[in-house]
């Protein structure tokens, strides 16, 4: 199996070849969406942040936008600004430029309103798409692959099949020098000490424990018992007995592969292997965290059928529930009910999924892409909205 990707100036390889339109603030989303409609090959990374957050969140949003622009699926970037936002568009531009990619900027105040901004931005985007279209996929090593993972609309089958199968991909791809990114701090809760034991450096494990504590404390600050509410009545009725069991089911997506580092939201792993990024469980912010970490695609497990993708990275939907695989067939990419039915082992299904994911990284579309079910995303902020 080989991976064929679009070569980037920083040595990475893209699974897609988008011209990204990145608003520094949600205030200019309308402009981004208009340019996306006008110019084929562009992708608008719309979100609702960029202003009126505490300084820590301004830093986090800026870091996330820069690293989204640096994602290997992005060929070049058009940054949009309003002119008064807290996230400084010039910082985003300079940050992305460090990767060697072409980055352009237009601002609504400076251009004198929406329509001239669209005209100028669309012209720049059209030039960049034409330029990007001249790139060809090249054969790249499997060590150039970076996948992230998440589970959504999970059910009993997730911890018994799809998550185990993704865990096998984690093992296979890290053995081949690839990079695997996990997050979902809410689902780590209960399993943080077991993940800490897998860390090559215990200081990294302490960070994972701190991610969970931080989530718990932020819940307490608004009077919410995050630990108590994490085990739902539905979980118990479905057969989950303890929070550790639930956490182990979610974290089976990495098996017992050693963990190299624990990274803040919006950050990028500095070496190959398995990493934990402080992403929330909520899909919109979670997938953005994986994309900012440089993943070319996401292995997204589901039980009942979560259809959403992400504008920057294709989402491969993997399901072990045979009923969902029929009723939601138009949204599921890889059926692993065989693991529950005992007709395929986790190892066999893992090899099959790994090969399929390499095909997707090399150009095969996911169902979320085909259906344009991949437009929505969000960026995590941790402080209050002012």
């Amino acid at each position, binding site marked *: 199996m080989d991976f064929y990707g679009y070569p980037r100036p920083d040595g990475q390889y893209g699974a897609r070849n988008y011209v990204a339109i990145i608003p520094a603030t949600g205030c200019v989303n309308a402009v981004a969406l208009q340019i996306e409609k006008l110019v084929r090959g562009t992708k608008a990374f719309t979100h609702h942040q960029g202003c009126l957050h505490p300084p820590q969140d301004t830093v986090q949003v800026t870091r996330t936008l820069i690293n989204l622009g640096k994602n290997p699926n992005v060929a070049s970037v058009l940054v949009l600004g309003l002119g008064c936002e807290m996230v400084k568009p010039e910082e985003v531009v300079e940050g992305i430029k460090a990767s060697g990619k072409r980055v352009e900027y237009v601002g609504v105040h400076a251009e004198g309103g929406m329509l001239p901004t669209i005209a100028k931005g669309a012209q720049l985007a059209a030039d960049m798409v034409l330029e990007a279209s001249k790139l060809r996929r090249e054969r790249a090593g499997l060590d150039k692959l970076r996948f992230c993972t998440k589970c959504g609309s999970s059910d009993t089958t997730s911890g018994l099949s799809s998550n185990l199968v993704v865990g096998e991909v984690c093992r296979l791809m890290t053995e081949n020098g690839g990079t695997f990114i996990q997050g979902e701090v809410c689902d780590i809760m209960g399993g943080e000490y077991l993940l800490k034991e897998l860390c090559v450096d215990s200081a990294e494990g302490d960070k994972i424990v701190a991610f969970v504590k931080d989530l718990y404390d932020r819940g307490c600050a608004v009077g919410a018992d995050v630990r108590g509410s994490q085990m739902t009545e539905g979980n118990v009725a479905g*057969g989950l007995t*303890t*929070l*550790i*069991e639930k956490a182990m089911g979610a974290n089976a997506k990495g098996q017992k592969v050693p963990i190299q580092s624990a990274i803040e939201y919006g950050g990028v792993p500095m070496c190959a292997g398995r990493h934990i990024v402080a992403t929330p469980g909520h899909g919109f912010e979670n997938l953005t965290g994986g994309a900012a970490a440089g993943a070319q695609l996401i292995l997204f497990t589901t039980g009942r059928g979560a259809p959403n993708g992400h504008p920057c990275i294709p989402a491969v939907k993997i399901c072990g529930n045979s009923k969902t695989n029929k009723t939601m067939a138009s949204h599921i990419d890889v059926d692993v009910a065989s693991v529950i039915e005992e007709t395929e082992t986790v190892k066999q299904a893992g090899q099959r999924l790994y090969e399929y994911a390499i095909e997707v990284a090399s150009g095969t579309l996911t169902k979320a892409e085909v259906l344009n079910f991949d437009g929505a995303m969000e960026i995590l902020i941790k402080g209050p909205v002012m």
Partner: protein
Amino acid sequence: MKKYAKQIDPMDNVATCVADVSAGDEVFVKNTNREVSYKANTDIQFGHKIAVKEIKTGEFILKYGTAIGKATKDIKVGDWVHTHNVLDHYEVV
């Protein structure tokens, strides 16, 4: 049709039923080379756990090869293992 339960790690002392099981049913667990059956002592719903080893009070319940809780009662092979006989010992510190 044969009723199966999944034992995720060979170390595990429980397996998860992937069919609704009635008391007295033989529940099959497939391992790498062989299939073993256990007689269910009670009804056990899809997604719930059956003990595949004897577990004494205070011993760990093992699933995914890790301790997920502690037995609050003696558990016999074939027993349903859930909140009525397991303590969730995890706390955020």
